[in-house]
């Protein structure tokens, strides 16, 4: 089924935040900190501009953003909308400037002088853990938001370990880079005494709660509208200090305000995901079976705990993600969530899984090389078997269903492992080296209350609701609190409703993204929408079906037990009545209804929660064939196979789109994307010429093969699949590069793998292997 939302986008008629015009609207430009860590000594504003500039002192009564968890030992941070005392990362907001156009607002920003006392910056997470490191939040005494420990061991390495390898791995800091940045248009509606905030968010209801808390007003006084949103990927799953600042200022000044994030702001102040460090030891027995893992990991969390997911969203999950799909008896993992002078860490597609998958899968390949067996053999020996499902892994994750070895087998066959090994023996005519790499992961999705309540962040998902109603002319309106920004929910939820009610697709309208017209929802994140919103839509439509049958039976003058809903009509023993006719009668001809008709009518709100809310586990095996040019370090992806099991697929085209798109982002992580910082915390990219996003020539068309093992816990057996594509590519590509370079003795353990890193790794390996040659 083709997407309902496509046409408006293809005609330039989408409506994104930057497209909204309100009468009298003024533009905002922010003055941002040029320094990573400094005390603000003074802010000089030319007197003639004073009424067009707001600084922290002007934000009377505004509370800082605070996202705590109840995890024992967690240390709390507070983030002011505009920095008051200290700035803790480059790009932090210091002042907001208001003018009729953005250009003029930037002119004002250039007139503001800030005097700073620069403080030593914590730029690296390992440096931040050292005793004596500069402190971001002085009262803490160190820079640790949290240290999380998982220990399933008897305190010593596995006794029967015949093989052991240790690797130090890193993933670079990234910028999620949706093509549309963030943006806010805010106005105070004096008629209903309500702050109306149009904002590019994945979570309008969560933004409303956060805004009300920070501004000290009732939630009823805040309406958040997420219009068309140009990609999220987690970047838009946060309460913004900009939203707080504009929300306050628009009410204070009585004019609508607009702030549209530009690419420079996005890169400099939004570099906020993925940066992990691992020291990982893996053990295997003499038969080449994984015995255990010992890991010390760090997550570079940036300066503040972001609302609502907190600073520990990655660090808190690594311990349970690292074991992957493997069954082994020994496991120890300690993870440090470290505060640094960088923008706060946010969820990015694949949240924590991408780093954990990279660490375990790359280390498994190293272990296989140490043992001298095919990396896939080590995996086959160690995967959870289908007959073990459902399976609680060593870190207590509950895998719902699946056949992991079969996925790997299909990937091996599709990529032609044997053929590649033969080809490698003959060598390439152009001098390049080819390599093959595999990686597997599970993607937990739609996990709910039981998982998040233990974490204790400001947002715990519970029931997901849907409001569904018929319009008087027989159309169907579906209202959900989650948001669609590329996932195609307007289509897939329509499919769910159509399946149950038989209403034609073009008569179904899915409305979302506005707190005023939709039920509460924690929003779109964690690949949860098809499970949670899909479940809620089904429940609501089923309830509506009951109402239709009730009214239809009355109109057919029969008992509700004698009718069925079929082909868009209520069908009784002798006659039928169209759904549209039932709606028309209900709303416009009540005189035709009997007195005992159920007065609740054709509008329902129903909720959904999975019977078991530990989530679904879709999974995939990725296999990558590539060629490395050892002279220039250039990498070409020759073939990319994905065997994915997403349970029952509602819309296969959209599922494939999510997988292919996620894979492109994973390729970015693997080979291109890196936000570097200098030693004082200056970010070293501020354009997309410095921060490289993969383009059409960098992303091959993946070959996607499907398995369909239904989840036992969801409405249709569907599983969340939105993030998986972005999880495995860094591991699969790194394994392929290491496979290609193994004969040269070179091994790459950091993403992204740049040409320079490849050339230098080869040179270092040659230096190690032939020390005399280097003399």
């Amino acid at each position, binding site marked *: 089924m083709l997407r309902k939302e496509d046409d408006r986008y293809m005609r330039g008629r989408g409506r994104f935040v930057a497209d909204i015009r309100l009468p009298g609207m003024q533009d905002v430009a922010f003055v941002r900190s040029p320094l990573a860590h400094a005390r603000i000594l003074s802010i000089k504003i030319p007197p003639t501009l004073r009424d067009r500039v707001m600084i922290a002192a002007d934000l009377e009564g505004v509370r800082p953003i605070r996202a705590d968890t109840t995890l024992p030992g967690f240390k709390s941070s507070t983030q002011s909308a505009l920095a008051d005392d200290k700035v803790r990362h480059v790009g932090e907001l210091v002042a907001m400037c208001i003018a009729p156009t*953005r250009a003029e607002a930037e002119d004002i920003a250039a007139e503001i002088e800030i005097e700073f006392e620069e403080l030593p910056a914590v730029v690296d997470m390992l440096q931040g853990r050292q005793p004596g490191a500069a402190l971001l939040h002085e009262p803490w005494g160190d820079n640790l938001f949290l240290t999380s420990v998982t220990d399933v061991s008897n305190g010593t390495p596995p006794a029967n370990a015949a093989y052991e390898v240790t690797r130090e791995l890193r993933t670079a800091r990234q910028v999620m880079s949706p093509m549309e940045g963030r943006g806010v248009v805010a106005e105070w509606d004096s008629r209903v005494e309500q702050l109306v905030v149009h904002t590019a968010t994945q979570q309008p209801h969560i933004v409303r709660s956060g805004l009300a808390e920070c501004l000290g007003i009732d939630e009823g006084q805040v309406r958040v509208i997420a219009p068309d949103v140009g990609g999220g990927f987690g970047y838009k799953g946060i309460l913004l200090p900009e939203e707080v600042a504009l929300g306050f200022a628009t009410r204070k000044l009585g004019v609508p305000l607009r702030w549209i994030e530009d690419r*420079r702001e996005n890169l400099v102040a939004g570099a906020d995901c993925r940066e992990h460090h691992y020291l990982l030891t893996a053990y295997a027995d003499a038969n080449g079976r994984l015995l255990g893992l010992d890991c010390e990991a760090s997550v570079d969390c940036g300066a503040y705990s972001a609302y609502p997911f907190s600073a520990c969203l990655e660090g808190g999950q690594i311990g349970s993600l690292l074991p992957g799909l493997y069954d082994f008896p020994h496991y120890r993992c300690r993870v440090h969530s470290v505060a640094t002078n960088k923008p706060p860490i946010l969820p990015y597609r694949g949240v924590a899984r991408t780093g954990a998958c990279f660490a375990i899968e790359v280390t498994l390949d190293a272990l296989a090389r140490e043992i001298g067996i095919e990396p896939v053999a080590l995996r086959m020996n160690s995967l959870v078997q289908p007959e073990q499902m459902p399976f609680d892994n060593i870190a207590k994750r509950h895998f719902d269903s699946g056949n992991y070895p079969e996925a790997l087998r299909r990937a091996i066959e599709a990529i032609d492992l044997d053929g590649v090994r033969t080809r490698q023996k003959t060598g390439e005519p152009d001098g390049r080296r080819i390599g093959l790499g595999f990686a597997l992961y599970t993607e937990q999705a739609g996990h709910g209350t039981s998982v998040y309540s233990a974490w204790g962040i400001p947002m715990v998902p519970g029931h997901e609701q849907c409001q569904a109603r018929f319009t008087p002319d027989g159309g169907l309106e579906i209202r959900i609190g989650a948001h669609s920004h590329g996932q195609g929910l307007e289509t897939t939820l329509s499919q769910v409703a159509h399946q149950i009610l038989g209403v034609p697709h073009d008569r179904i309208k899915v409305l979302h993204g506005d707190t005023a017209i939709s039920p509460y929802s924690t929003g779109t994140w964690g690949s949860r929408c098809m499970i949670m919103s899909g479940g809620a839509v089904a429940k609501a439509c089923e309830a509506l079906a009951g109402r239709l049958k009730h009214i239809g039976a009355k109109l057919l003058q029969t008992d509700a037990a004698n009718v069925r809903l079929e082909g868009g009509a209520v069908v009784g023993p002798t006659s039928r009545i169209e759904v549209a006719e039932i709606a028309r009668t209900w709303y416009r001809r009540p005189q035709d209804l009997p007195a005992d008709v159920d007065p609740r009518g054709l509008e329902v709100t129903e909720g959904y929660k999975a019977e078991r809310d530990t989530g679904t586990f879709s999974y995939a095996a990725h296999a990558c064939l590539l060629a490395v040019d050892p002279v220039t370090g250039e990498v070409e992806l020759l073939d990319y196979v994905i065997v994915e099991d997403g349970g029952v697929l509602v819309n296969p085209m959209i599922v494939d789109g999510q997988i292919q798109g996620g894979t492109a982002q994973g390729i970015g992580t693997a080979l291109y994307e890196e936000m570097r910082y200098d030693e004082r915390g200056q970010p070293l990219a501020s354009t997309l010429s410095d921060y490289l996003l993969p383009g059409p020539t960098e992303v091959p068309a993946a070959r996607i093969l499907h398995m369909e093992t239904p989840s036992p816990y969801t409405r249709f057996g569907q599983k969340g699949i939105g993030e998986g594509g972005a999880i495995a590519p860094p591991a699969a590509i790194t394994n392929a590069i290491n496979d290609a370079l193994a004969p040269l003795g070179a091994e790459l353990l950091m993403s992204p793998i740049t040409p320079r890193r490849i*050339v230098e790794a080869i040179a270092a390996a040659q230096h190690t292997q032939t020390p005399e040659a280097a003399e």
Partner: protein
Amino acid sequence: MKSAAFDYVRPRSVAEACDLLAENADAKVVAGGQSLGPMLNLRLAQPPLLIDITRIAELGRIAETDGAVTIGATVTHAAIEDQKIGAPANGFLARVASGIAYRAVRTRGTIGGSLVHADPAADWVSSLTALGAEILVVGPGGTPRRVSVADFVRGAMDVAIEHDEIVTGVHVPRLSATARCGYHKICRKTGEFAEAIGVAVFDPDRGLCRVVAGAGGGRPVVIDGARGTDRLLATFDDPRSGRECLDEAGVTGDDYQMQIHVAAVQRAVQELRGR
């Protein structure tokens, strides 16, 4: 970010443009604006006045003679890519043009603008140096002077031009029909800036054999072979002798940079030889 405010003027003639420059010390000439535009939008460049030379008819023209093709300064990369102008180097210019940034940039970016910017990573800086092209510069006096691209580009972003002069065109000598060229650019992704550029030109009839290593951060390094032989090219059959050759010629860089500079030249030579 939006550009800081500037004034804008659109002269009709080269003489007017030069006069405007002479009167306005901080004015900037703009043609397609594909390099200046981003700098303005980032407010890293804040000239008070932009002098748009794209409405000066003579700068967008081509003049062909038996020995050379003169390409006007505001001729776009796309016009060259689409082979709308004479081909002094057997299609080589079109091939180079097609690799500059992206199509929507090439439709406005100009050959003269690129040369005046003298970005070491720019394709024209290296390729036109290899072809022995000359730049035509006109000042308030009106008399054009000709300076070789190699002398014009003094270093990164540094060209031999006075503030009140403008580049009016590029004089590209014709290669003979038997000449062959090779070009190889190493960059992180399609359309991005080069980390190394290799150019190789061999024109037996004119006795020319030359390689250029570009995108090294400064001006491109030119190595001329002995007249009438292509022995120079063989130097790059082996990476070690290639590296020695570039070292001697003054190409600098760390091991990675030197390795890709050698590879770029080596691959340009291979392309020239048709393999």
